[in-house]
């Protein structure tokens, strides 16, 4: 910033020396021309170095025999990819990731809509209720994982004890595939539902009231107007929520990692996610950066594709909804 020095002559000091004036004009000109680039430069330089370059370079590492300790080896083409997709573990990780993602994001959006609709009413102490739903957001996922792995403990957990009071047999949260996914999805939603709710709430508040008034005139009840006005009007907001939760959700690591003490995703890897697999390939026993990069790159492409599909699907569903109800 110091390079971009201020003009040295104060404007009111009417120096008649032409050279000074010319210099000032020139400095001023440069200031106007180059300052904008100077100000955005830190972002672009740092982002390029620690964000973009590593991501692109991942593709380069993925076609090499590359080791945590030995460093870069020879070019191996698609071999890392072939080995990865031949591993049942990779597919298991993919399955688990998707399962956890669906189990967490669908209820999250639905509960979020429900909560937002309630918060959208004319409430006393608005801020209190809104802060209330957001509170879990400041708890770190690692802590959430530790808390809920105890709540969902198979033997002495609270979840099973409560179920037992209703005469339901204990669920093997840490052994069954689906049960472990439900437990992890619960952790995700514990932390993120409030956040999503507030985004949806802001979207709801932007809906013009005239629409609701017209619906009332037409004899629409609360549920009907929620379905035919609120939800279709929220389309962009819902798309936004779904896309961002896809990007984050498919990279999930912290909660499943903390679901038991070992952090391997269970005896049978029943809750091991793709990112956990990536970590294990790179920093676990294999120490293969090449294969870890191949996994990262595959996941990257999947996220792009799913993001696109999400976008189209959400648009279509909400689109037909609003058309059908008109």
């Amino acid at each position, binding site marked *: 910033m110091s390079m971009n020095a201020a003009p040295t002559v104060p404007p009111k000091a009417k120096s008649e020396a032409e050279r000074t004036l010319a210099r000032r004009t020139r400095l001023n000109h440069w200031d106007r021309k180059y300052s*904008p680039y100077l100000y955005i430069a830190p972002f672009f330089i740092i982002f390029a170095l620690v964000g973009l370059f590593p991501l692109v370079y991942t593709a380069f590492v993925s076609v090499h025999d590359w080791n945590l300790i030995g460093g870069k080896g020879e070019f191996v083409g698609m071999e890392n990819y072939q080995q990865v997709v031949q591993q049942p573990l990779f597919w298991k990780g993919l399955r688990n990731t998707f399962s956890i993602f669906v189990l967490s994001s669908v209820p999250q959006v639905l509960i979020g809509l429900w909560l937002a609709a*309630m918060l959208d009413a004319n409430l006393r102490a608005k801020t209190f209720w*809104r802060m209330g739903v957001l*509170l879990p957001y400041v708890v770190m996922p690692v802590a959430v994982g530790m808390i809920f792995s105890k709540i969902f403990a198979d033997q002495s957990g609270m979840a099973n004890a409560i179920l037992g009071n209703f005469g339901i047999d204990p669920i093997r949260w840490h052994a069954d595939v689906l049960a472990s996914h439900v437990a992890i999805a619960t952790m995700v939603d514990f932390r993120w539902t409030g956040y999503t709710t507030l985004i949806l709430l802001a979207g709801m508040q932007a809906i013009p009231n005239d629409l609701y008034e017209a619906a009332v005139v037409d004899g629409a009840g609360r549920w009907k107007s929620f379905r035919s006005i609120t939800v279709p009007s929220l389309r962009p907001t819902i798309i936004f929520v779904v896309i961002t939760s896809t990007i984050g959700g498919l990279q999930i690591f912290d909660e499943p990692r903390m679901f038991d003490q070992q952090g391997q995703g269970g005896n049978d890897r029943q809750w091991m996610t793709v990112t956990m697999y990536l970590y294990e390939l790179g920093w676990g026993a294999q120490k293969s950066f090449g294969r870890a990069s191949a996994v990262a790159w595959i996941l990257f492409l999947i996220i792009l594709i799913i993001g696109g599909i999400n976008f189209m699907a959400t648009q279509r569903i909400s689109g037909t909804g609003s058309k059908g109800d008109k």
Partner: protein
Amino acid sequence: MSSIGVVEQTAGKGAAKHARRRKNRATGVGSNRRGGWVTYTLLAIVLLVSFYPLYYTFLLASSDAQTIAQNPIPSLIPGDNFIDNARRVLESDIKFWQALWNSIIVAVITSVSVVLFATLAGFSFAKLRFRGRRALLVFVIATMAVPTQLGVVPLFILMSELGWTGKLIAVIVPGMVTAFGVFWMTQYFEETLPFELIEAARVDGCSMIRTFWHVALPAAKPAAAMLALFTFVASWTNFFWPFIVLGSTNPTLPVSLQLLQASYFKDFSLIMAGVVLATVPLILLFIVAGKQLVSGIMAGAVKG
């Protein structure tokens, strides 16, 4: 880096403006109905359910291993062992104090840095005219959707080459800028800072940087404070990258909590005491600044 992901979730403008406008129309129809006791009751239940796991943590943290083993559903009254358990956490080998200090350092530096660079870039994008402005801005917005966490392998190689593994700088540098921050500040300047003010400063002979410092920065305070808050929370809760690059020798709080669970899995009173100690700072921050977090999320909600 991975901390970006968390903050990313807000974008867009206008929603808050609409919300403000709507306050004046309190009628009995549509979504503006008055909340009845059913709504209050349901909301209260939801809040209790979402608060309970935190209270549960404290209940266990103030108990002892044997009581916990015997009572899967803890009594609602806390025990009196919390101080004891907390002391055991502090005396254990998870380096709690070091981790706390590291977390504070990283969170403070990244927050300041993100805000500074985002404000500079946002000012430039929103209020200065230059060639390539639009394209570069579109690039920034597009990068918000890029899962940069997936670049961990090369980033780790880079940090090893630099000899930064195990050092805080390896966590700080990748967190120094976020695309979201730039976007956020650009939006804010576009909506709030009039061109006339900048021109006036220029006519008075201010250089660009002085205009930024004396006109733009003071105007940006509310948005900058929110951005700092979100960055702080994201940094504090970030686990994946610090876990990889710092390891157990020089941990941040989440990394040291992970160690606690890995080494003391039988003693839940100890583990939960650790969780309480690591969580309380942000709960306190939330009590002070939660209102800003709420309005930040709502101001950022998407529109169109």
